[in-house]
């Protein structure tokens, strides 16, 4: 079977898998950002309990492997009475894990905003919410974006692991096609190329563009 025959026969399966991978990625991006912001802010809190919760969460998820977390949430949580559907379990685990890394980025970025900015906002008697939202966060965001871009690539690659709890993503389809055809080079090679194209020619340029927009808005472009 030539590669073109292979593609015309199994191409649709790869496309379906790619769609599932992208859905996992997009949902997880939003949830990761939300978790990272919440945990990042909580870690900066003066309240020891709030801070403790955040530190525990971050260390727990940064200290273990994503795969361990995925198996634990999918196979052990049901024993404790919480059953998640595999698609949801995938998104939640991905976000919890990458969110912990993101939280450290958020914390670092907020702390990197010069102290004078806080003082100036304070002396203009801006409300705490306004101070954070209009003064601190935009500057923190600009500092964080390059590192955040790397994290998004990591998240995208990490979606491949959800295939192990049998979410029918690109990785899963590649394995299926491999076990049907025994054409490993074609099956896994095609998947590699699709992941590469999405990460290198879609996600990375979008992040660069966002960086450019932010920098321009901040007047640093």
């Amino acid at each position, binding site marked *: 079977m030539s590669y073109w025959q292979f593609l015309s026969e199994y191409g649709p399966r790869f496309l379906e898998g790619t769609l599932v991978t992208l859905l996992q990625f997009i949902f997880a991006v939003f949830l990761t950002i939300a978790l990272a912001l919440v945990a990042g802010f909580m870690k900066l809190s003066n309240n020891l309990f709030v801070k403790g919760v955040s530190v525990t969460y971050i260390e727990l998820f940064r200290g273990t492997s994503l795969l361990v*977390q995925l198996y634990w949430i999918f196979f052990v949580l049901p024993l404790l009475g919480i059953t998640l559907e595999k698609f949801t379990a995938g998104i939640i685990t991905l976000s919890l894990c990458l969110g912990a890394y993101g939280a450290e980025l958020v914390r670092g970025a907020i702390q990197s905003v010069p102290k004078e900015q806080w003082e100036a906002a304070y002396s203009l008697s801006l409300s705490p919410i306004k101070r954070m939202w209009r003064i601190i966060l935009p500057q923190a965001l600009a500092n964080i974006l390059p590192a955040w871009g790397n994290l998004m690539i990591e998240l995208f*690659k990490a979606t491949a692991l959800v*295939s192990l709890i049998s979410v029918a993503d690109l990785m899963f389809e590649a394995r299926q096609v491999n076990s049907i055809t025994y054409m490993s080079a074609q099956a896994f*090679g095609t998947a590699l190329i699709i992941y590469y194209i999405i990460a290198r020619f879609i996600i990375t340029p979008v992040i660069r563009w966002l960086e450019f927009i932010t920098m321009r808005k901040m007047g640093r472009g």
Partner: protein
Amino acid sequence: MFDWKWDFFWEVLPRLLSATVNTLIAAGVGYVIALVLGLILTLAQRTTFNILNMIVREFVEFIRSTPLILQIFFIFYVGPQFGIKMSPWTAGMVAIGLHYAAYLSEVYRGALDSVPKGQWEACSALSMKTHDTYFRIIIPQALPSALAGMGNYLVGIFKDTPMLSVIGVAELMHTANAIGSENYRFLEPLTMVGVIFLLISIPAAGFIRVFEGWLHKKLGMK
């Protein structure tokens, strides 16, 4: 609801501990491969052949933008198609070593770029050989700034070893799954794997920080 069985815990603990040794070996061997291969990948981007530099550059990007788990499958299953038969261990070490080599080559690149240009110029003014320039002048100066990244990826490679379980390397995750399906009990083995990871990676990360601090002080850098 929560029926944790301590006698089962004690029963499977020895098996998991011996698997932990395998995990550590896998991480260690993978890391050594990555350290060496990473250096080769960095140096191959700095030759006088522009085409070679570009190809290696894009190869590194390719490795960095595709999932490790897929690379593991690719190396394990595609090798035999071309007559290269590898045991799960060999294939796993090659895959994880190559993946992290790409990351480490970026660390080295950043570190090499951080060496002031004057140092390079001084070397060429003294007409030192390329080999001497790198090994006697540049690398010793670049090393300290590379160490932070190198330490992080050591912990990173350790946390990625569970992926080797998919091709049957008998590390922690694989053993825990085996225990689980033999006894129809996943609660204890999977939880224990998580705890073992925490118990190793958090102190390791702390130790690396301390070591970095010590080294910076030793080298007289702040």
